[in-house]
């Protein structure tokens, strides 16, 4: 070809020039997008072994958690209706609101199996929306923590101040509605000691609730929401309050009441005395007393075990299904004849 060539000397010049200010991008694996990379592909081996592995892993876990849940011994006793005398069944709210009525309620529970100490005592509320928007924010953490913020009652209305304007400590609906049923237990008329120490988180006691903050003007308003607090004990030691103020996630929840530090033997009769003070009647709530041991999985809950078994067996099934699929419909990976433009030459 009769290509006009640049003069060789000129080319040399140009090369020098280019070296000086060539805009040619510098080569690097990064800029050329050629970094070393791993290219995972869902090959049959990987798919089958993934499913099989999950199956093999999940089924034992499921069995373990089921058995753990099985080993948890739990006594649940719903007492909100039963603790209302027959004559007041029609107007439970009036009964519970009245200060004159005797709200003591006695019952006997049978221990189904041996229960190793510690046996946790919970109260369980149902239909109580501790996560209600109006409720969950109705507190003031500053006030709870330190005495100098005693006047800080933001977010606490309508339980912020008394009528004369002095601050309520602890303020807010959560504290105001502190649960106030009490339980005492006895076996063969011998009272069982309930340990109410250390039922709250240590971190809450140390940091969130001040040791110099004492209850003030609490539960003095027109409407009593729940328990009263001993004004001589600082908030950091009011463990019931601390437990209550760690608001529950769901409208059906348990809260730790205390622990029984002695073992309970199967078929033992525990007589329980309940002070049925707390008003759940006005909103169709339920109250239950729960005695339960614990395991590594927490309380009695079969769900997780069942779920793990289900997922595990599903994965095993899928592994099998994929094996069958790969056998029935073999396909060479990366076979160019599967490319759409090769697959159907007549049609295309």
């Amino acid at each position, binding site marked *: 070809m009769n290509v006009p060539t640049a003069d060789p000397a000129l080319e040399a010049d140009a090369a020098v020039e280019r070296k000086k200010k060539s805009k040619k991008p510098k080569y690097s694996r990064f800029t050329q997008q050629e970094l070393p990379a791993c290219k995972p592909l869902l090959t049959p081996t990987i798919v089958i072994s993934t499913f099989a592995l*999950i199956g093999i892993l999940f089924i034992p876990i499921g069995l373990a958690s089921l058995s753990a849940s099985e080993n948890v011994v739990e006594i649940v006793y719903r007492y909100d209706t039963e603790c209302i005398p027959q004559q007041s069944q029609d107007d439970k709210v009036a009964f519970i609101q009245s200060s004159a009525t005797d709200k003591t309620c006695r019952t006997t529970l049978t221990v189904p199996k041996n229960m190793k100490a510690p046996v946790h005592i919970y109260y369980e509320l149902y239909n109580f929306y501790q996560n209600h928007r109006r409720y969950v924010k109705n507190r003031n953490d500053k006030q709870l923590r330190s005495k100098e913020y005693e006047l800080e009652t933001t977010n606490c209305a309508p339980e912020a101040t008394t009528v004369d304007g002095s601050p309520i400590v602890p303020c807010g609906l959560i504290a105001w509605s502190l649960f106030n049923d009490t339980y005492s237990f006895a076996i063969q008329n011998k009272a069982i000691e309930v340990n109410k120490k250390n039922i709250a988180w240590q971190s809450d006691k140390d940091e969130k609730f001040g040791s110099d903050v004492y209850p003030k003007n609490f539960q003095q308003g027109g409407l009593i929401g729940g328990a009263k607090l001993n004004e001589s004990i600082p908030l950091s030691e009011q463990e019931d309050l601390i437990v209550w103020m760690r608001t529950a996630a769901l409208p059906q929840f348990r809260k730790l009441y205390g622990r029984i530090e002695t073992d309970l033997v199967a078929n033992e009769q525990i007589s329980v005395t309940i002070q049925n003070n707390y008003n759940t009647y006005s909103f169709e709530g339920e109250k239950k007393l729960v005695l339960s041991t614990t395991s590594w999985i927490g309380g009695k809950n079969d769900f997780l075990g069942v779920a793990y078994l289900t997922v595990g067996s599903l994965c095993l099934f899928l592994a099998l299904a994929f094996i069958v699929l790969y056998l029935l419909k073999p396909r060479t990976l990366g076979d160019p004849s599967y490319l759409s433009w090769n697959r159907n030459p007549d049609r295309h």
Partner: protein
Amino acid sequence: MVGDGLTISREEEEEEEERSLAPLPSSGRHHRRKSSASAASRDGFPNPAHVRHLSRTETERLASSQRELADSNSRIVFIGDPGGSDPRFEIPRNSIRTAKYSPITFLPRNLFEQFRRLSYIYFLAIVILNQLPQLAVFGRGASALPLAFVLLVTAVKDAYEDWRRHRSDRIENNRAASVLDPQSGRFLSKRWKEARVGEVLKVLANESIPCDMVLLATSDPTGVAYIQTINLDGESNLKTRYAKQETMARPPGEDHPVDSAGVIRCEQPNRNIYGFLGNMEVDGKRVSLGPANIILRGCELKNTAWVIGVAVYTGSETKVMLNSSGAPSKRSRLETRMNRETLLLSAILIALCSVVAICNGIWLGNHSDDLELAQFFRKRDYSDGDDKKYNYSGIGTQVFFAFLMSVIVFQIMIPISLYISMELVRLGQAYFMVRDANLYDESSNSRFQCRALNINEDLGQIKYVFSDKTGTLTENKMEFQCASIRGVDYSGGRVSSRDNGEAHYILAAGKHILKPKMSVKTDPELVRLLKNKGDTEQGKRAREFFLALACCNTIVPLVVDTSDPKQKLIDYQGESPDEQALAYAAASYGFVLIERTSGHIIIDILGNRQRYDVLGLHEFDSDRKRMSVIVCGPDKTINLFVKGADNSMFGIIQNKVDLSMIDATKANLHAYSSLGLRTLVVGMRELSRKEFEEWQSAYENANTSLMGRGKLLRAVASNVERELHILGASGIEDKLQEGVPEAIESMRQAGIKVWVLTGDKQETAISIGFSCKLLTEAMTQIVINCNSEESCRNKLQDAVAMYRKFAVISPDPFENALTGTGSTKVSMALIIDGISLVYILKTKLEEELFKVATACDVVLCCRVAPLQKAGIVSLIKSRTEDMTLAIGDGANDVSMIQTADVGIGISGQEGRQAVMASDFAMGQFRFLVPLLLVHGHWNYQRMAYMILYNFYRNAVFVFILFWYVLYTAYTLTTAITEWSTVLYSIVYTALPTIVVGVLDKDLSRKTLMKYPQLYRSGQRDERYNLKLFTLTMMDAVWQSVATFYIPYLAYRQSTVDGSSLGDLWILAVVILVNIHLATDVFRWYWITHVAVWGCIVATLICVIIIDCIWTLPGYWAIFKIMGTGLFWLCLLGVIVAGMLPHFSVKALKEYLMPSDIQIAREMDKFRRMNAATMEIQMNRFSTLQL
């Protein structure tokens, strides 16, 4: 028609007026040059359409020359008197301002600009809603954080860009100009920004011109000045400008105080850089001014010691500033689609909010009696004894509030972070495109340029490519290939080896060696002939032929220094590439043009330096289609040299010469043009004294006449150009750019239709079509070149009938031809010319044309005007969903580039106008293949996945919030802390998707280039469509169900507190969506690992930090819950259960219904193994052999 393109530069006088009428400012000139230049080839067929076309432009020209500059509409400039300028209009000074903001206006203006995005208004509205106490879902700070973050990032970017503009403005405004001081008559130094209209300025060689000025005087006695317009239109060759003789005589300055100075009337400022209309009154005489008389800001003065001019347009009114508007902003297809899905998501959002609000109302209604006393509600406020309600104002209001609050809580259903992520990802993609060594053009030293940053992903969905021809498919570098002298063909240079006859063009000039910058391969036989001192008739003619090539032109030779001090280069500057090619060719054969002044040229003929006086020059015009010079050689003979198009030349030859020579020449010409060469015929005549004197008086008369000078000069030329001896003909190749046929073939396989739109003639277009493999012999050509609407309709109907006929044979001719596999393939090519398009576009026939054109594999449009190019693009754009791309290099492509979805400018030979208007710019046409097939594919794939993933990611989160709300008495409580909610999309999950969006590659570059068909996945919208969106959303719902309900069921009836469960949820969802992303990543780089796993760790750290703040209710919750086995079981369960459907479906789909991409991925992975085993075998084989 040969020679059309030779001397366009000289026809300015009348032509510019026509140009100023061109529909698009600044586009007319280029088009003209190109169309006429390319006309110079392969002709010999009469073309009625072309003739018509010319006669039409002729009438326009006549009309335009009658145009008068209305006084009311003109600017009046008093030379040397800036104060006296037209008071009717406010005229700015010469300072410019490209910066958008000042420090004071930055904040409001920038915010205003940013809030023009509708989605930002949405987010702002939500932030404002959240500030209302009744609705405050989040803390005030937390809610504003995402929007503030996005606004801040954008503002910082804008501020930085603007600061850079400020800086360059300041530098520009403070440059020094020398301005005539009317009092002293001396030129004083002033800053550019202080120059005013009417002031007289002096510019020295190599200085930039501060404003648009009318030339008054130059250092050259004939009033010529050379300027370089590279900053204006990118053309590097020198252009000549003239000062009027009337002002040349007494340039304003020390000798000639400006008291009697004249008045200039000119147009109001406009953006047409190739047009100017004005007149000047000097000493009572009125002189007309054209574009050849002004020099524009941004140009540089070259080869001229100084010029003096008067400023007519300054500052923001200069043509360069009026032209500096950016490219129009386009929005990518994917983003448009995305907006549709955004609307869908809004509908889902509203649905969710309505559900919450209605349920809230029902709940309140059912419990209206209970809530008086319920501890957690406390409808009544007893605190001051009154019976008033606490924070409760009836069910209706509560429902309304619940609705608004749920909008606030669920707001991230519309992902705000997506917008900023997309910007960042595009930035990253642009970085890689610019840095790609495969898109770097060595010859022009230019990288790929990303001028538009928001349509990267469109590159992956192109279906139509509209390409310009000259400069885009071809290099627009003309190369001399063949010569025919006296009917003898000398094409040896085409085939000869590279090394021959080097010695010819090296010559000693004093101490220096001068060389032409470029050389052509020479034909050895011709070289021998020339060396034989011209003894034979053939030798004599050959010498005359090359002498004609060396002197019959308007080339300005420039001597350029090289790094070697003994060597200098001659650079031929001229406006026509054909002329340059001929001059270099002559130089290679030993006829080196060394110097040109206004009166003479010096040519080195085989080592002898000879001076030729140029007595006259007849410029090219489109009637004669030739140019001529009259020179007086050293032997005092006066010769006329003519070169021009063949049909114009054969009409004026001497009749007596032997006809066989003419026939041989014609045969050669035909052979050349069938090779796709552009041909020119050269002739000469020796003038007798008498003839010369006759001519001279006529020429001088014509030159000095004031009226109809052009017409008179033309007549003089026609008169003298007769009875020529034909010396020979030349063949010049308009070389195809490297790799064009391969690129076109790749694009054809990729399902991209390539249409060529050119200003060339039909024959040229077809020949180029063949040489770049666009057309093949097997194709059926449908040619439409009609002169009336009626015949166009008939032709189109025939074409439709033909198409139908083929359609019966094969149901889908388009697909068929693309794959090139079908045996029944019938491919058609449509060739249509501009005249026919006039009758078709914008009429009822458009629809027919569309049908035919889309059925054809190839469409060639010839003789199209710039606006027609745009018209064809919009023909496709308005009728199909398909993406269009236009690629071009000249100003005549600007409208097409701006109309198409993606506009690409070739930064090559012609001006920068195309680049300025384009979205992307690159050096070579063939780069289109890696750009579309590799980067376009990647960008589309990445962006499509990123959008889907962002939608999915935020939807999962919103649904989790929604499920929880169902268990809070519909009161919009969130278990997840508000900080985590806010950080979720901007911190917890943002980085991996950006990294994947920038880096992930589904297929390697090699595979994508090897199988262009893979590109079709983008055309089919495979990676982003409603089906995928729906599937992704269903997956999102399932995953949210798994994430929410597994912990919910596991923790029901337990002592768990809201914050702990919230922490579990946020961790679970962050891990889940990151694992989801991880299963979809194609390539794991170390960066990807860092981003994905790092993000999970970062989330954990953030959650821990949040839980270490004692004022928040969740204090210490994460530590407590992480200490339990249940937490970890839940987490694992959530991830596995959540991923199960996605993973199974993915595995199933990839195996049973593999897409092309999937197969290619497998090939990518396994082929390497195959190659490795092959290599091992080969090695073994070779060792055995040894």
